[in-house]
């Protein structure tokens, strides 16, 4: 509680002379710290907010995590709407703007080329869902004994067969979308969000050239027609989170 302040970094942007239409963490105004053509999107945070000693408790507070994560993401996506944007990891802070200015001034030529690779492109997420996994039914559980064991084994084996089949479809789906993308990633599968019943089969991220967006959307529509209603979800455009790097 010493009232110290730090500069919180959201993203690197090119060009630097842009206006960001979003407020930052703790509703702070967002500014650009620029070094020539590349800038960093920054706001001021209290040093307490990201005090390493407090982080463990803070991260256990889901409400806090959501507020901070959404604010971070809002600013990053707002930047990506007006400039080529390299998102930074949540929780990145610096002593002051001078340090930030050094960072953006001293970027290597290779790091600068990352901007070339991302320019005019946006990330889209496409998730494909399959049927929900079969749970042990109450009836099956009550029958007990070997009959139950046999039936349960058969169910699980049937599930495995079905899941292998849809997993293969998901791979085919990924490949078909990846052909339209400048770059693509299969992110780890996770459990489903609200409103979509089923098992996640594909959690894809695709870097799409602006001109390719209509074709990409058409391809996603085709997938949805093949997999069935509500089995295919698209999110985005996102800033290119899954494709950003600053390789030396």
């Amino acid at each position, binding site marked *: 509680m010493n009232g110290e302040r730090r500069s919180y*970094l959201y993203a690197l942007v090119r060009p630097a002379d842009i206006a960001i239409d979003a407020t930052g963490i703790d509703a702070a105004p967002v500014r650009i710290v620029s070094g020539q053509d590349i800038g960093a999107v920054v706001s001021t945070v209290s040093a307490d907010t*990201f*005090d*390493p000693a407090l*982080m*463990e408790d803070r*991260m*256990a507070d*889901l*409400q806090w*995590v*959501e507020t901070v*994560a959404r604010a*971070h*993401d809002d600013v990053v996506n707002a930047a990506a709407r007006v400039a080529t944007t390299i*998102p*930074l*990891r*949540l*929780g*990145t*802070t610096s*002593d002051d703007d001078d*340090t930030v200015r*050094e*960072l953006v001034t001293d970027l290597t030529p290779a790091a600068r080329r990352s901007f070339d690779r991302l320019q005019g492109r946006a990330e889209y*997420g496409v998730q494909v869902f399959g049927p929900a*996994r079969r749970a042990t039914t109450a009836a099956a559980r009550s029958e*007990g*004994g*070997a*009959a139950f*064991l*046999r039936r349960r*084994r058969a169910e*699980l*084996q049937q599930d*495995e067969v079905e899941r292998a089949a849809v997993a293969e479809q998901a791979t085919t789906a990924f490949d078909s979308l990846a052909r339209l993308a400048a770059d693509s990633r299969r*992110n*780890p*599968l*996770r*459990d489903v*969000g*609200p409103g979509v019943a089923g098992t*996640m089969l594909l959690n894809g991220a695709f870097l799409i050239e602006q001109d390719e967006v209509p074709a990409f959307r058409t391809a*996603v*529509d085709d*997938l*949805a*027609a093949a997999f*069935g209603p*509500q089995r295919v*979800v*698209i*999110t985005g455009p*996102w800033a290119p*989170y899954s494709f*950003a790097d*600053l390789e030396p």
Partner: protein
Amino acid sequence: MTNPVAKRDATLADVLERVLDKGIVIAGDIRINLLEIELLTVRIRLLVASVDKAREMGIDWWERDPTLSAGDRDLEQENRQLRQRLAELESGRHDGHEAPAAIDREEEAQQ
């Protein structure tokens, strides 16, 4: 006809996947405080903190995270155990070995 593609707003899980797992990490005088905690720890802490709230928000990917838990590994293991158990029971019946009494009785009651 309605478009079958669900175009939806990003869930918190979508956002966390990106802001916690992706995005570049820069070093030097720039501090990334979240790195002080391994991401797995973060997930576990989140889980412990508020699992019901998390579920409401659709953040329960740890249930599928093979390094963390649960789902797939348990089912595979269950399947393996079932196979083994059934083999024991069936061989027990054929070669005259006693299968565990409780299970035998249950099965007889069904027949």
